[in-house]
């Protein structure tokens, strides 16, 4: 995944996975979370999710949660929370600037 390159921006899917894991979830629940929150606009395939989970675990942004069972659960790490908060600040700044320019009085 192409996260955190120069701007520090996350891909949409990465950000959603991090957000979904503020509450521990297994793979299927992550997919459902993303589909529900975006009203079906964003659908994550299981193969891509598998890759993302491995990458994010390696980065230390998420980690396995609880007992190793057949349906493994994951949860966001404190470092992952930092990343998510940083991304939220970046997006807020972006929307503030955009509202000022595009939205006029909406700002």
């Amino acid at each position, binding site marked *: *995944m*192409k996260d955190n390159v120069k701007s520090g921006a996350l*891909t949409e*899917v990465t950000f959603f996975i991090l957000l979904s894991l503020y509450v521990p979830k*297994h*793979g*299927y629940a992550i*997919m459902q979370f993303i589909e529900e929150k975006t009203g079906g606009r964003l*659908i*994550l*395939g*299981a*193969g*891509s999710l*598998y*890759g*993302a989970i491995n990458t994010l675990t390696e980065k230390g942004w998420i980690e396995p949660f609880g007992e190793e069972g*057949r*349906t*493994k659960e994951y949860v966001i790490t404190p470092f992952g929370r930092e990343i998510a908060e940083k991304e939220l600040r970046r997006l807020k700044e972006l929307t503030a600037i955009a509202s000022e320019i595009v939205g006029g009085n909406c700002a």
Partner: protein
Amino acid sequence: MSLKKNRYFAGFMGAQAKWLNSMSKKGYRLIKTGKLQYEFDECEPDKYVYTVEYVGDKSREESDKYKEFLESIGYRVFYKNITLDYSPGKITYRPWAEKGGRISTTRSTLFKELLIIEKENDGTPFELHTEKEDKANYYKRLSQPWYYLVFLFLLFAILAWPLIPGVIALAALALLSIVPIIIAEVKIHKLKKENQLEE
């Protein structure tokens, strides 16, 4: 009543998935796979959809892990072979595979090069790879073995000298083996371009 059918799709994964989906439309659900044989149970037509994925470059441990993950999502997963039963000693060398998968035997990854994955039909297309970068990685993995084939055919073509018909036949095989590489590279190139446009 179960139904048994013999088919062999080699590495044509799209064709295999298409056939399984057409069986599902007729009301047959896959219950067992053999090297050439597929066994089906009767079920409600179109209740399940299938897709086929290449795992022949993974170690047994990795492909088992991936299979378990897909099962935890709620899918049914079958191992399926690309290779047939002709390799002497039931062992093959796969230089393109990851560590742990390069020497392939019946105890490890031989005859388990593919996964057939089944999910309940919810009307949406069954796509495992939805992210552009992940898709590009998958195409790259698919094209790896073909580089080795091209190299081998070219090597044999040189060794066949001065037997001209042999050289021509082997060179033609090398050329044919380039086709899948080109197809994969075109797809990867398109994905990269799309990715750049979005950034």
